[in-house]
């Protein structure tokens, strides 16, 4: 097994202790949490606004990702 780089490797994106919570929400799990908010939010703002948010999120990510 090639393990090159695994021991000394520093991760610029890895969450530090104090950033752990923020990192989970706004980092790696940003996509499922956004999906959860858009789907669950239908209760408050209705299905058409959810569809608008889903489309808007897609457009934003297509630009920056």
């Amino acid at each position, binding site marked *: *097994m*090639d*393990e*090159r*780089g*695994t021991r*000394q*490797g*520093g*991760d*610029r*994106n*890895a*969450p*530090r*202790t104090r950033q*752990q919570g923020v*990192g*989970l929400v706004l*980092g*790696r*799990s*940003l*996509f*499922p*949490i*956004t*999906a*959860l908010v*858009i*789907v*669950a939010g*239908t*209760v408050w703002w*209705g*299905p*058409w606004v*959810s*569809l608008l*948010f*889903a*489309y808007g*999120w*897609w457009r934003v*990510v*297509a*630009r*920056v*990702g």
Partner: protein
Amino acid sequence: MRAPRLLSHPADLHCLVFHLVALLTYGVAFWLWLHPDAAGLTSVGGRVAFVLAAALMLGWISGIDVGVNFHNHTHRRIFRRAFLNRWFGRLWTFSGGWPAFFWQHAHVTVHHDHVLGHGDWTLPRRRADGSWESLFRYSVLHWPWRYAAHLAADFHGGRAGPQGGRRALRELGWFLLFWSVPFVIDPAMGLVLWAFPHWIANVLVMGPGMYAQHALCDEPSRRPMRHSNTFLSRFFNLTMFNIGYHTEHHEHPHVHWSELPGLHERMKDELIEHQSHVVPFGYYRGGQLLSALTGPRRSREKFAEQHPDYVRVPEKEPVAGGEP
């Protein structure tokens, strides 16, 4: 961050949270479908809007959950116990339309061991002139049609090992058991909020992702480190478990996903030396460029442009008759 004893690597907590939130989102969508009064889903138009919004979001996160998140698990198991790895794997890929063992075989045994070679049937097919089929054709045909045919041949022919066929049947049984649950609860719900998102996950998310990862590349035996594209968008790599460092990943598939940025820095000179293709954007922008209907040639050229920081500067020729 202290590593919980459960996990192999502390950063794998992200993998766990991602998948659990994805399952929770499916649960919320199902609940709203089954309780239409709660969210005003009483009209046909309202239901259609909800299905489109929910299916897009569910399919999108399922594509990432299997194609990126579970993908990491196939290379480096996230739990320390084999039992947990086996069962969490089964309950991981079923929400993306895959039995875990099938995806693992396709990715590790077929794709990684034969990347861009004749044995790698996971990638787009080549035309007579050697170029790839279009992204649209590949995405629509690869899942489940081509995968099913190739997997059946592999499991029947022993490519997955002597017990591969039996194991495949067992895993298919577990998959069908779990995958059928939403259909048992409500067949219409199963179709629009379960099967439809899985189609989106595979055809609109994972297909274009696979295409972008290796588009315009060469077999490793012909040009080392030109087998994959490396995508450097910070937003993309932050939210996609560093999957953009794809050349590095194929060169060293057992390096943990959280350590790929560090590996990339150490490999930078090597990448430049071998003229490995590096771009400043992510898969989303890459997919757009590779599937552009207006000005497709210009868009492909844009995709093929090398990141300015990764251009090899040719060594200067010694000047004849110059000073010693």
